[in-house]
Each structure stands twice: as C-alpha cells, then as structure tokens.
C-alpha cells in the first residue's frame, strides 16, 4: 500500500524531545544555522515554503531543489527579535511583516518596517502576542515613491466594482504605461490563527475549510493531512481516493471558471458562457455526489465525511465524457480567436528567474518554467499511485498561464478517471485518539488549484490546536503580480490580475 507510507513514517518518530514535525524533520537551530539556511534560500539552492511564528519562535519551511522532503527550522526568539529573512530574500518580506504585526517579533535588519496586515483598525496590536490596546484607529501607510514629471497615480480599491474581495492597488503610470504597482492587502484579515488556537481539531478543520472558499477542499485536505501526520492516523484507502476526487473536481471547476473569466476581462463573453456552463455542471455534480457544491467540510481529519454512492460513479463518468467532448471546442475557440490571442500573448510576462526566486507555485510558476507541483514534487496519497502530466511553459504570459491551466484540466480529467476506475471499497473514516501523549506537531503540503498550500499545526496535550499556520500559495504570487504589470498598460491589469487570480482571503488570513 504505497499511499500509507507517509502516515506510517510519521508514526515512527522517536518519542524523545524536541517536538518533531511529522512527517518532516524539524530542526531547532541557533542564529548561525538560521542565517545559513536563509543564505541557502537566497542563493537559490532551496525554495522558501513559508515563514511564520507561534509567538515564541519563528519557523522557516524550506524545500531543497529536487528534494521531496521539507525542512522546518525553528529559531527561538527570547528577546522578541529574529534575523530578517527578507533582508537577503525578498519573497519573505510580507511574511515577516505579518509576523511583526501579529506577534510583535521584530525582524532585525528588515528593509521594510511598514505594517502589512495590521491597518491600525483592530483596536490592538499584536493579537497573537502581547495584545497591546491602541485607542485611535489610524491608517497611515506610505506607499513606495515613484517620482517624475509625467507620472500620475491611480488608486484602485479596496472596494472594487465586481463581486470580488477587497484589496488596494496603487498604480503609478506614465500615461497608459504602468511604472509601478504596489498592492496593499489585509482588508479581509479574520484572525484565522487566533480562531484556531485552543479549538478542538474538528472545529479547527471547519475554520481551515473557510480560509479561502474557492480552495476549500484543498485547505481541508491539507489541514486533515497535517492532523493525521501529527497524530499518526492511517486514513482508509477509499477516503484517500475520494479526497483526490474532490480535490480534482475543485481544480476543474476553478480552472474552467477562471479561463472563462480571463477571456471575459478581454470582453470575450462567449468563452465565459461556455466555460461557465462546464463549471456549473461540475458544481452540480459535486452537489449530487457529496451534498455540497463546493464540497466544503467533506474532507475531515481521519477521512471524508460523505461516501460516494455507486450510482453516482456512472453519473460522473457521463460528465467526464461530456467535458472531454467540450474541451477540444473550448481549446479551439480560445486558440483560434485572434482578437483574444492578441490580448493574451505577451501580456503580463513573468520571467523564469522571478518565478524561481519566489518559489511561486501552481500554474503561475509552471507557466514560467518552474516544475513544481506538490502532488508530484512532494507527493502525497493517493497521487503516488496516479499518473498525470504536468503542463509547463516558459513564456510566462497570460496566454501561457491559460494553456497551462488547460493542461491541468486534461491532467485532472485523467486523474478522476483513474480514481473512478480504482476506487477501493471499505471505510471512509478512521476514528483516532485526538489527545496525543504530549504536544505534537504536524505539517502538510497540498496542491490547490492555485498552488501549494502549507499547513503546519501543533496539537497540545489537551487535544486542542495549540497553534496553526496556513500559508496560501498567493503569498508568493501577489508580489509577482506587481512585477508582471510593469511596462504593461493600465487597461491590461485586469487581464493580468485575473490570470493570476490570487486569493485575498487566503492571504489576509
């Protein structure tokens, strides 16, 4: 049983202190080793997966090039300071500012001391740490300067005209050409970390499912895997396959919806209509099979909460056949509409270097030559047993991102077919002891449609979540959006933005 491998290894960890982070290694390091690790990322020998804190220590998750195991380094911060990672490695800057906002740990030597998620409107500072009350809400924020005679600023948001989430974009433009874009996010900060701290595992799983609605399955998947890794739970094989089925249905629905939406931003509504049709049928199939259109709370720690009835398999197969019939038409419609190609080709090109530096996951990274997919690169059940192709391009423009998404659609269709063929019988949920003998940590990396979601959590000896960190793939994609729009025209921003489709909610936590 290949797919049980990881869980078993997680269970085999030596019982001695310090707390290990199943299924990966956790190193408690000093300032020197910390800096060495940061230099390694800055050199490009390893990718930064996340940087977070629990109020007492800071944690750095990295994955070495071509390795499949994640290394988590912990640095204790008794004097509430830690050596800045952002100083050497830009992609860590916003994560670092978040640590300072939430826990009051100061990154020494950080090139950017501005607050990030904290807009001064919470009524307190450092909600995860000392909780100092502040009386006057203030929202002073200095945007980076761009000066020159012909330059003018265009503030957009935080409230947008469409039904989308809030975020502020500050454009500096020379006529139509964007010179600089600076984002300001954090408007939908919900305090997920604080909500989870002290919650029972089942409760926390529900919070995790609501971090970013469009990837609710992936978040539940990642959270469940982290819990299972920490507690050494062996998930029944049927549940593993059903999880993959849900994850791929979610991926398909999102990719179809987004491809249509990107084309609609170029005023090509026909594609939106066609893709919307496919997306709707996928969501209805999800509702019929699992009782919820987005399959929220269907993946739970220990397995899944709803079984797939036998007669639904034929229904899903029928849907797959229909999508396989539609897909070539959609590909043709997209590829043959020259007016649309004129908009997408060459627009918002992301260089391979930037994609590599930011270890940017998902289709954004893969469209810029970064071959990373958590399903393949790190691997987790049941994907080790499934074969699928990764779509990769080197162009990095809006067009490349759309083609990579089309490739992922093909891969997902193949995966679902394999899952339906091989779906084993048996239980769908393993009961497990929620109270570990001692404080214990677990982590998981799961590929959502946007990219890899990292979940790290610590379960206290009382069986409640002591601390959790959920890192959305958008953390490493939002900054790149600022980079790709440079030199493009203002009117092309919606197209670039939609082709990234970063999560506001997942990022703001």
């Amino acid at each position, binding site marked *: 049983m290949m797919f049980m491998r990881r869980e078993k290894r997680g269970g085999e960890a030596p019982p001695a202190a310090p707390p290990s982070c199943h299924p990966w290694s956790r190193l408690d390091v000093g300032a020197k080793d910390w800096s060495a690790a940061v230099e390694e990322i800055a050199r490009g020998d390893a990718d930064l997966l996340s940087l977070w804190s629990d109020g007492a220590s800071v944690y750095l998750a990295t994955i070495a090039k071509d390795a499949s195991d994640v290394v988590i380094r912990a640095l204790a911060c008794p004097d509430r300071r830690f050596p800045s990672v952002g100083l050497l490695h830009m992609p860590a800057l916003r994560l670092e500012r978040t640590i300072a906002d939430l826990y009051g740990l100061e990154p020494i030597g950080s090139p950017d001391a501005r607050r990030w998620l904290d807009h001064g409107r919470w009524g307190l500072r450092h909600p995860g740490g000392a909780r100092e009350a502040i009386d006057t809400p203030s929202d002073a924020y200095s945007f980076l300067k761009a000066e020159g005679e012909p330059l003018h600023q265009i*503030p957009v948001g935080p409230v947008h005209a469409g039904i989308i989430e809030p975020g502020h974009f500050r454009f500096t433009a020379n006529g139509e050409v964007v010179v600089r874009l600076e984002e300001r996010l954090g408007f939908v900060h919900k305090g997920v970390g604080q909500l989870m701290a002290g919650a029972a595992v089942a409760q926390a799983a529900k919070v995790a499912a609501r971090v970013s609605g469009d990837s609710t399955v992936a978040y539940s998947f990642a959270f469940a895997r982290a819990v299972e890794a920490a507690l050494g739970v062996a998930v029944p094989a049927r549940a593993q396959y059903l999880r993959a089925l849900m994850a791929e249905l979610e991926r398909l629905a999102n990719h179809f919806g987004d491809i249509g939406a990107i084309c609609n931003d170029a*005023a090509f*509504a026909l594609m939106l209509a066609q893709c919307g049709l496919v997306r709707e049928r996928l969501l209805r199939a999800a509702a019929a099979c699992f009782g919820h259109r987005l399959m929220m709370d269907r993946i739970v720690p220990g397995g899944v909460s709803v079984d797939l009835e036998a007669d639904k398999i034929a229904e899903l197969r029928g849907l797959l056949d229909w999508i396989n019939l539609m897909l070539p038409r959609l590909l043709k419609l997209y590829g043959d509409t020259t*007016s649309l190609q*004129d*908009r997408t080709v060459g627009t918002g090109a992301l260089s391979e270097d930037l994609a590599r530096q930011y270890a940017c996951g998902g289709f954004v990274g893969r469209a810029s030559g970064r071959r990373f997919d958590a399903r393949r690169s790190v691997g987790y059940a049941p994907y080790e047993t499934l074969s699928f192709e990764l779509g990769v391009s080197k162009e990095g423009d809006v067009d490349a991102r759309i083609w990579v998404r089309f490739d992922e659609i093909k891969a997902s269709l193949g995966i679902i077919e394999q899952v339906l063929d091989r779906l084993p019988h048996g239980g769908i949920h393993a009961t497990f002891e929620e109270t570990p003998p001692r404080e214990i940590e677990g982590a998981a990396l799961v590929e959502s449609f946007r990219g890899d979601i990292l979940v790290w959590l610590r379960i206290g000896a009382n069986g409640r979540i002591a601390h959790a960190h959920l890192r959305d793939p958008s953390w490493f994609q939002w900054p790149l959006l600022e980079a790709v729009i440079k030199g493009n025209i*203002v009117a092309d921003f919606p197209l670039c933005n939609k082709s990234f489709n970063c999560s506001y909610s997942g990022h703001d936590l």
Partner: protein
Amino acid sequence: MTFLLDLFAQAMQMILVLALSPVLIGFTRKVKARLLRRQGAPVMQPWYDLIRLLRKETVLAEDASWLYRSAPYIIFATTWVAASLAPTFATGLMFSWIADLIALTALLGSARFVLALAGMDVGTSFGGIGSSRETMFGSLAEPATIMIVFVVSLIAGSTQLSEVAAYMASDFELRVSVGFALVGLVIVAIAENGRIPVDNPSTHLELTMVHEAMILEYSGRHLAVIELASALKLLLYVSLIACVFFPFGLAPHNGSLSGMGYGVVLYVAKLAVAGFLLAVFEVSTAKMRVFRVSDYLGVALMLGLLGTLLVFVTRSL
C-alpha cells in the same frame, strides 16, 4: 395644412428616436444574451432603468462644478438634435435643411468635448483615464468621419443628409468608394459608441473603461440623461448608415401618411437588423488593446481617403 403635417412629421421623428433608442440597446443586449445562452433582460429593460434612475436621488461630488451638473443636459440636447436631424423614416423633414453632415459631426464633437471635461471635473483618476482615452479615440475618429463625409457628399453632390439620402435612393450607382465609405462608417460607429472591440459597455473593470469611466461618478437623473444620450448616439449612427447606404423605403417630402407609416416600419426593421449584426459582431470578438484602436480607426481614415481619391479619379476620367 402642409405646415402642420411637416411639423407633425418632424415631431414624430424626434419622439420616435427618443423612444426607440433605449429599445435598440435593449434589443442588442437581448440578442447578445441569447447568443451566450442566457435568458437576458427584457428588451424594454433600458427604459425601466432610465425610469428608475430618474426617480433616484442625484448624488454630486463635493468638488463638482456647474460644468459637471450641466454637462448631461448639454450632451443630451446635442445628441438628441443630431439624432432628430438624420432622416429615419422620411426625407425632407421640416428641419432637414440644417441636417448637414458636417453639422452632425460638430454636434457630436461638442457632446464629446463636454463629456470629456465633465469626466475630469470631479478629479477622480478613472474619469481622467476615460477622458484621456476618449479624446484620443475622438481625435482619430473625427478625421475619419470627415473623410467619409467627403466621399458621400462628393458622390451625392451635397453635404445635406436629406439630399444625400434622396440621391442614393434614386440615382444610386455601385461604386467602390461607397463600399469604402460604408466600411469606414461602420468602423467609426463602433468606436464612437464605445462598443466591443473598442470599449466594453457592460464591463465592471474601471481600468479598462472609456465611456463608462467618464460617467462613473454620475447618478440619478444625470446618469439617466447621459445613458439616454448614448443610446441616441447609437441610434443616430445606425440611422446615418441606413439612410445613406440603405435608403429604400424612406418617405419623400410631402409624402402621404401611409408612406410615412411604411417608412417607420422599414426603419424599425433596419434598426433590428443593425442591432442583431452588432450583437453577433460583439460576441465574436474580444476587446482590443487601447493602443490598437489607433490602427483600427486608421483603417477607417484610410478608407475615407481612398474613397475620396477614387471619386476624384473616376470623375476626371
């Protein structure tokens, strides 16, 4: 009696264009929706929207000047006058003598000028972007319009629309120049009315807007009047194309009432055909980049120039 009949015909024309223009918009939207497999809003929806807007409170920006407040009415007045002058169901109406093609272009140009100023008046960045794009498009569309006007008026021997229409209806001969002028005018019409591929009238993306960006701050009756003006403008261009290039069925001066009725029916049919074609075209193409619009309008200008040249060449031979 003739005077009364003339007055009646002219009044009817003014009311007809006003009544039909939102319906044309609604019809185009309906066809688009059906082509996209949607049910679509009722054809009369633009009218319902206008009535709703008229009932609503008008919110003004603090910095709005008199220009911002009066611009909607100026735009509406000029566009309505322009739309009322172009022959729709009959030629030789009471005010036809002022229905000069150059006067029409000037009326629309004034409306554009006022709208662009109003867009910048309250000082929001989107208004500025919209005005800047609109003036850029305008500066390209107007020369093209003038060139096309030259082609038509050289052929018909007059810049007066009524006479042009009458000439085209009676002494029409197939000319390459007329074809050029038709294509050019269609291109200009799409750009001037902010339709796909130049502008997307149904977008919510402020950064890509042109016309919508300028009127983003308008509300209530101001917005209603501006919306009505842009509906009138679309109708005007359709009427213009119809009366110059497809002038059949136009009731002559001092024609009978039945002739006029026949003209109205045919006119509505022409509008429907135009609305349908516009919807089909809009569904089948994406919007072009802002800077591509110059190439697009450049084609119209070249067609106008070529048309004029060809007319001269064929005349002198």
